[in-house]
């Protein structure tokens, strides 16, 4: 099948970049070092996994793993109806990796989302700005060390008083 063949081809072509290949609940994951991400994903794309279904990240602060951050790519082949997960590990000190926007335009917004929520930057991305939170937002909320209730951002607004009408008693 396409999946097995591609995985063994990738292992052969990038032996130094592959950390591990695992299987859980019938899903194959390829764990890689972050520096060869663009080459490996274009290899997958040429092999037939031409649909980037999803791009996201996980903060491995308490879970453990090869490094603190991992960017997860879910690839799909329409032809052979198979999926593969590619996980690129990034160190905490320098959370940066190459953008795959040149391969799939859909990565544009999703990489911005990862940047916004995790603070992972993508090199050679056309517009690396926040997408969900306001530009003035401080911090990256999906990191495990960010409190769920936030710092003060949700109560930091001016209070508008009633205009000419008096304060009504509530009905």
């Amino acid at each position, binding site marked *: 099948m396409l999946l097995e063949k591609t995985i063994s081809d990738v292992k052969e072509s990038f032996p130094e970049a592959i950390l591990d290949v695992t299987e859980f609940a019938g899903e194959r994951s390829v764990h890689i070092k972050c520096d060869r991400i663009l080459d490996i994903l274009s290899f997958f794309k040429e092999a037939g996994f031409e649909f980037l279904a999803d791009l996201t990240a996980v903060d491995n602060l308490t879970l453990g793993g090869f490094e603190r951050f991992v960017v997860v790519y879910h690839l799909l082949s329409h032809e052979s109806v198979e999926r593969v997960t590619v996980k690129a590990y990034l160190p905490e000190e320098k959370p940066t990796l190459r953008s795959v926007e040149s391969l799939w335009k859909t990565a544009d917004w999703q990489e911005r989302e990862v940047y916004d929520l995790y603070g992972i930057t993508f090199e050679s991305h056309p517009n690396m700005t926040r997408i969900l*939170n*306001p530009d003035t*937002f401080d911090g990256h*909320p999906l990191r495990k060390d*960010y*409190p*769920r*209730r*936030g*710092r003060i*951002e*949700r*109560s930091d*607004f*001016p*209070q*508008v*008083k*009633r*205009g*000419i*009408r*008096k*304060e*009504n008693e*509530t*009905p």
Partner: protein
Amino acid sequence: MPMSQDEIKSNVLTTTIESAVNWGRKNSLWPMPFGTACCGIEFMAVLAARTDISRFGAEAIRFSPRQSDLLIVAGRISIKMMPVLIRIYEQMPEPKWVISMGACASSGGVFDTYSVIQGVDQFIPVDVYIPGCPPRPEGIVESLLKIQDLVDKEKLSDYALSDTK
């Protein structure tokens, strides 16, 4: 030709200006739905055939704040949206009323997170709250009737005083 006593009785109605104005206002509210999430969908249901709010004279939905006098905050308000909401509230001409529809607008609801405002009444004045997540259309109709009661109690003297200030 002067009117006879009988004609006057059947053609003339005496009232105060205040109640005449309030009567007109309360039966022709022009809502501006600030629908952001699920509550916005239920608000659509109120406009549709089954619970038709034109029965209460409030079907003239205006998406421009300058033309409306009832702001319906329907849905959760995020930190990015709050400045917009404040601005829209300030753009509405007086007199104006505000309904906070649903749990999210009233208190943040289930979204106790960094980016959701925990109740819009912290920042803008709210007249009527509707409970529910989302409220049923009947709840929205009920809140409209509550607003009508409020409008009925308006005093024109309040406006006169504030103008002389």
